[in-house]
């Protein structure tokens, strides 16, 4: 198992997986990211990030039932694990702490 650090893009993907909840598969994640952040990412990048997340234990994957679309192929669905949630939370806490500790004067200087 690799380290548990959560990179910026990984965090984005992980959050998207959480948002899409029961329908988080490659294309849907790619679309969601594009709609929300305007970032164009290739499908292979999404998969490679999901792979990394899975290696770190932040997501689980399973196949759902076949659909007539997609050439009859099943979707590889991802769901967030507890560890994933924890990682997101700790990231968020870290940010919140940092935000809190910015002295007001730093904003005023602008």
């Amino acid at each position, binding site marked *: 198992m690799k380290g548990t650090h959560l990179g910026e893009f990984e965090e984005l993907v992980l959050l998207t997986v959480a948002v899409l909840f029961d329908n988080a*598969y*490659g*294309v849907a994640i790619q679309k969601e990211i594009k709609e929300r952040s305007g970032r164009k990412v*290739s*499908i*292979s*990048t999404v*998969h*490679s990030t999901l*792979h*990394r997340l899975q290696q770190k234990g932040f997501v689980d*994957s399973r*196949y759902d039932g076949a659909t007539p*679309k*997609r*050439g009859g*192929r*099943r*979707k*590889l669905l991802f769901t967030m694990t507890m560890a994933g949630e924890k990682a997101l939370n700790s990231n968020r806490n870290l940010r919140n702490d940092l935000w809190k500790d910015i002295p007001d004067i730093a904003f005023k200087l602008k």
Partner: protein
Amino acid sequence: MMKKDFPPRWLESILRRVCDPKRLEGILGDLEEIYEQKQIEKGSFRAKVNYLINAFGFLRPFAWKKKSAKNNRVMFMFKNHLKLAVRNFLGHKISSTINVLGFTIGMVSCLLIGLYLLDEYQVDQFHEKGDRIYRMAMDVHQRNGELMQTAFSPAPWAPAMKEDFPEVEAYTRLMRYRLEIPILVEGTTKSFYERNFIWADSSIFSIFSFPLMEGDPKTALAAPNSVVLSESTAKKYFGTADPIGKTISYEGTRNLTVTGVMQDLPRNSHIQADFFASFSTLKQFWTIIEDWEILYYYSYFLLDENGNIEELSKKMPDFISRHMIAEVNNFFKPQFQALNDIYLSEDRENELEAGGSRRRLFLFIGIAVLILLIACVNYINMTTANGIKRVKEVSIRKVLGSGKKNLVFQFLGESLFQIVLSVGLTILVSLLLLPLLNELSGKNISLIGNQNFSYFLFFIIGLGILIGIIAGLYPALFMAGMQPTQIINKNKNTRTSKFPLRKVLVVFQFAVCSALIAGALLMSAQFKFITQKDTGFNRDQVALFKLNGGSIFSLENMELLKAQMEAEAEVKLATLSSHSPIGDQPYYGRYQFEGIPNVTEALSMGRLHIDADFISTFDIDMVAGRAFDKAMTTDTSAFVINETAVRRLGLSTPKEAIGKLISYSTQGENGNYIRRGPIIGVTEDFHFRSLHFQIEPMVMDIQPARFHFLSVKGNGPGLIQNLPRMQEKWNAILPDAPFDMKLMDDLFYQQYDKERRARSLFGMFTIIGLLIACLGLFGLSIFITAQRTKEVGIRKVLGASVSQVILLLSRDMLLLIGFSLLIGLPLAAYLGEKWLTQFTYRIPLNIGLFIWAAFLAIGIAIFTVSVNAIKAALANPVNAIRDQ
């Protein structure tokens, strides 16, 4: 059904092979979904492209079948192969170095030649409408049966053709005077001689893609007396000031207004111009412009989209009959050349710029391929020779169950490793050598920062793969095919090595090398011949001044200048003439002869106007009669002809020509008049043009109005040192005129620049080829000598002398080399003979030269082989025998 079409099965199977089976279905499904979406949005094709791009995105490690045991084994084998390749490389330092060096040298030569070719093929390719532009050139069938192929055409044809033929969308005519033109800037002392001053119709900028930086391309050259300058020329004349609206003076007589500035014409254009001046200006002073038969212009046509050049050219005979008389069709055969073809097809007479030559390109491609093959042969020889040593390794691998496929991949990997190394070296070396190539070829090729670089990379990778296949495959198959049983009779097998392919390859290498040597010697000899042949006049210590340019050079000024020059102590003689005897275009007149049997029609002969000192200044010998004499006033209407003219007239001796009358029409100050007079002398033939051309019949007379050159003969070597004083005198008499002096000797060698370049390039590649072949031979001789160390030791113990041993070790090789000469030299003789036929004046194929070549080849081979042989022969036999 659509689904079966796409994605293609091969793509799916690649993914299937590469991807982790656990995710494969999801990945394929996602790809499919995106594809379906794209197909609706952007259509099938874009969707397919997109699918491909996306699919290749998955060819990265995360998706690989990592955990599977099989995959691990492949990775392990790969690493193992790499390790073996490195070890093997380091373990055989000499052969590895020879291989890598050979590949590198071979690839560098190929690459540089490739770049040269690329540059040649890019000439004139930048015109947007280039595929619709044609030039009308002319085949002129002369009355004497000779065919003259010129790039020129008459001026009035193009406008008439536009009238007559709807498919002609536009035309432009270009005219460049044969001499350099003095250009002056009013009110300043700036004046330059300009070679690239071209008169052009206003449509030039809409036909060719020569972008204007300032001025309107449609109208810039519409009005008479307007001129467009190139950017750098504008800088030269006006500095940073805005040139538009400024005036330059053509020959000091004609003011031209600058109406535009164009980007400097690209180097890879067969039209090189610093000035385009409006063609309509010519009507004011160039009287022959209305003539339908005078060939002095370049006509370019832009056809419309439906135009067909073949059909146009079929209509030409009719056109000629309509505008002139039908009989002209017997003499004038217009030829249309596609713009893209002009540069590389064989040069016609009077080309704007000397072009490239397909034949020369093919020659160099051939050489590049041969050099590369020599390098590949080295590799094959060295690897198979070394391979015999590795028979043990191969056998053990086989015994342990390695398949043939596996072994092939291992050996291919080894060659690949060396090739990758060489490719890296090649890139470095080529970048370093590029300036040298530019120097030798007179080009200015750069790699960094333009599209050439992508070609370059593409080319070098292609080259690497090609070499890998040519050089790597055979040794790999050979070694993988060795039988374990060979171990047992190893000694028998290696000792006499009845391996014929290696011998064939060595013979091939040296056949090529000896042919290259003979070719290089032949080219050198021919070059020496054309540059050292007696041209019939003496150019030693002669300096040439240009006096061309209308009113600046009045006859009085020219005579004064000549007199002043002659007064100098360092100057022996000076003469005025219409043409420079070196590096000038020929000029013809039609001469009517009287009193010569069988010659009734006027004959076209070379025309040269000289003064009374010309023949003595250039030391031209008289074979009959006398030269012009200042003291004889009647000589101003007399003629001197050359020996070839005498022969053309059908006279048996030059003496018979003396006293015969010549008349011809020439242009004087008051229009055309007939000049008539006797022949007073006959000169020995002299080469008025370079030795590419036959000596032509020549008629000389005195016509001061046409003088354009002053030639000054020095008295000893002081002429050059005296240059500043000459310039002072010049400036005193001709303050406006640009001072331009050239040494005849320099002009003479410039004529043979092309040959000189070809000779140095060929010589260089010969040396390279030889070097690689010698490397190979050297490596092979090391191997053979090492094989026979023990034998040599025993022979020495039994009393063999050093020379016997050397002979023993070198004999086989030298026999091969001797055999290769038998193939290479006749081949060289055949090709050399073909090459020589393009020269009018050529050396005979001479046996001595081939003996020299053979001698050289054998000498080099003996030296290479015997280094190792001598070392082995001198070694203490004890060391050789002891270790068993």
